[in-house]
C-alpha cells in the first residue's frame, strides 16, 4: 500500500529547498560565469587570469600567508586565555570578561585611529606584521574557547595536576583533546575571516601594494577575469567548510549566551 503524500510536509520541504538553492545561487553563478569569456564557453577566462594576469597569484599567496599565520597565532593565543577565563579563578576575572564581551562588539572604527598611530610609532605601518597583528587578538575566539572549556570535567584537570605541574603538558594532554572540535571550528572561522580582510588593508597597509591580500586587490583586476578570480578565491574557503563542517555545526549548536 502506498503511503499518502503529506502535502503540508512536501510543501514545507519544497519551500526550504527553494530557499537553500536561492542562497546557493550567487556561488553557483560565480562558478558558472567563470567559464565564459567573450561569449564563448571554455577555460579561456582562467587562462587569462593565471597567465596573462599572473600577478593575481601573488596576491593569492599573500592571502594564504596571512590566513595561515593568523589562524595559528589566534588559536595559540586565545586558547590559554579562554581556558583561564573559565577554569582559573582570579580576582576580577568575570568583570574583565564582561569587558571582553563589550570589546567584541566594538566596530572596527572605534579603535582604528589609535591602532593606526601605534603601528606608526612602532614603524609597523605598511608591513605584513601590521595586518597580522590586527587580527590575532580576537575576542570572539576567547569567548568560544571559554564556553568550550567549561565542558572539561574538573577532576580531569586535578588528576593531571597530580602527575605534572607544567601547564604546557596539561594543555597538551587534557585541555586540547577535549576542545578538538572547538579548535577546528575556530581555526576554520579565523582562516575565513582573515581570508576576507579588507578594512585593515585599506587603513594599515595602503601604500605597500605587493603585500596586499587578494581581498583588497581583486577589485582591480581587468574586466573579464573577475569571475574566475572570485572562483579561485572562494575555493579554499569553500573546501575548508566542507572538510570541517561537522566541527563547525556542533560548536555553533553548543553556543550559549551565559553559563
Amino acid at each position, binding site marked *: 500500500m502506498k503511503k499518502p503524500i503529506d502535502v503540508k510536509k512536501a510543501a514545507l520541504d519544497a519551500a*526550504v529547498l527553494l530557499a537553500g538553492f536561492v542562497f546557493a545561487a550567487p556561488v553557483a*553563478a560565480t562558478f558558472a560565469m567563470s567559464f565564459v569569456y567573450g561569449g564563448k564557453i571554455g577555460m579561456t577566462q582562467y587562462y587569462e587570469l593565471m597567465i596573462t594576469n599572473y600577478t593575481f597569484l601573488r596576491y593569492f599567496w599573500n592571502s594564504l600567508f596571512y590566513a595561515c599565520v593568523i589562524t595559528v597565532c589566534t588559536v595559540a593565543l586565545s586558547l590559554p586565555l579562554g581556558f583561564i577565563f573559565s577554569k582559573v579563578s582570579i580576582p576580577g576575572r568575570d568583570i574583565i570578561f564582561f569587558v571582553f564581551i563589550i570589546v567584541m562588539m566594538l566596530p572596527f572604527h572605534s579603535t582604528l585611529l589609535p591602532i593606526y598611530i601605534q603601528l606608526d610609532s612602532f614603524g609597523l605601518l605598511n608591513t605584513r606584521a601590521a595586518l597580522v597583528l590586527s587580527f590575532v*587578538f580576537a575576542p570572539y575566539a576567547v569567548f568560544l574557547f571559554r564556553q568550550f572549556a567549561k565542558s572539561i570535567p574538573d577532576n580531569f*584537570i586535578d588528576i593531571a595536576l597530580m602527575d605534572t605541574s607544567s601547564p604546557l603538558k596539561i594543555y597538551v594532554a587534557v585541555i586540547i583533546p577535549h576542545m578538538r572540535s572547538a579548535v577546528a571550528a575556530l581555526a576554520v572561522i579565523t582562516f575565513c575571516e582573515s581570508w576576507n580582510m579588507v*578594512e585593515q588593508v585599506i587603513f594599515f597597509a595602503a601604500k605597500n601594494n605587493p603585500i596586499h591580500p587578494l581581498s583588497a586587490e*581583486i577589485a582591480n583586476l581587468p574586466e573579464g577575469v573577475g569571475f574566475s578570480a572570485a572562483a579561485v578565491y572562494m575555493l579554499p574557503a569553500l573546501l575548508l567548510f566542507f572538510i570541517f563542517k561537522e566541527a563547525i555545526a556542533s560548536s555553533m549548536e553548543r553556543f550559549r*549566551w551565559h553559563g
Partner: protein
Amino acid sequence: MNNKRIKRLFFITGCPAFAGFVFMYLYPFIRTVWYSLINNTFQKRFAGFKNYADVLANPYFRRAAYNTAVFSVTGVTFIIVLSLLLAFGVYRLSEKYTFIKNFFLVPLLLPTAAIIFVWQSVFLSDGYYFFAKEAAFTDFWTMLPVYLIYIWKNTGLNLIILSAALASIPGEVIEAASLDGAAGFKLHRYVTLPLVSPLLLFVFVLSLVNSLRTFRESFLFFRTNYPPDPAYTIQFYINNHFLKLNYPTLTAASVMFTVSLVLLLSLVYRWENKLNEKTY
C-alpha cells in the same frame, strides 16, 4: 584549581594574549576618547565637548546616523523573521534533505570580495539603475543589494543557533500544550517563542552587531568612498574623516557610535534578565 602556584603558571600562559588585547583594544579606545576631547592634533589643547557638539551639528553626520539606524532596524527585522521561519522549516525538514543546511551556512565563510561580482553585475547594471531611479521608494531599491548581502551572509549563523534552540525544547512541553488545545500559530506564539526567547535575543544582538559590519560589503559593492545617499552610514563618515586626517571629529563620532551601541546592548541585556525572571 586551588594551588596558587599552578594558578600563577596558568595565568602566565594567558599573558601574551591579554597584553595584546590591552595593546590593540583597551589602550586604543582610551586614546580615542582622549583624541575626541582635544581641539586638534597640533595644539592638543583640551576642548571639552566641542568636538561632539560640532559632529552632532554636522548634517552629514546626522544623515549618516539616520541611515545607519534605518539599515540596522530594517535589516535586523528582516533577518530575524527569515531566520525564524527557516529554523522552523529546517527543524521539520525531512531527513534526506538536511544537507540544505550547508547552503545557508556557507555564505558566512565565503570572502565578500569574491561574491561581490555577482551582486555588482546584477545591481550595478544600467538596467537596475534606471529601474531604481524611476520606481517608488528609490532609497530602498538602491539599498536592496546591501540588505540582500547582509541577509545572505548572516542568516546561516542565526539559523544554526535557532535550530539548536528549537531542538532543545523538550517534546513533553509541546505535547502537553497541544493536549491543552494549542495548535499551529497559537502553539508557537505562546509556547515555542517564549521558550526560544533567550537565544532569540542573542540572535538579535548578533544580527545587530553584524548589521554594523556590513560597511565592508557596502564599501566593496559601491566601490567608492561616497556611496549613494541612503548607503552613507556612520562608518563611511568616519572613513572619510580618517582620509582627511580629521582626527578630533572622527574620534568624537567613533566614541558616540560606540557609546550608543554599548547603551543599546546593556538595555538588551537588562531586558533579557527580566525575561528570564518571568519564565522561571
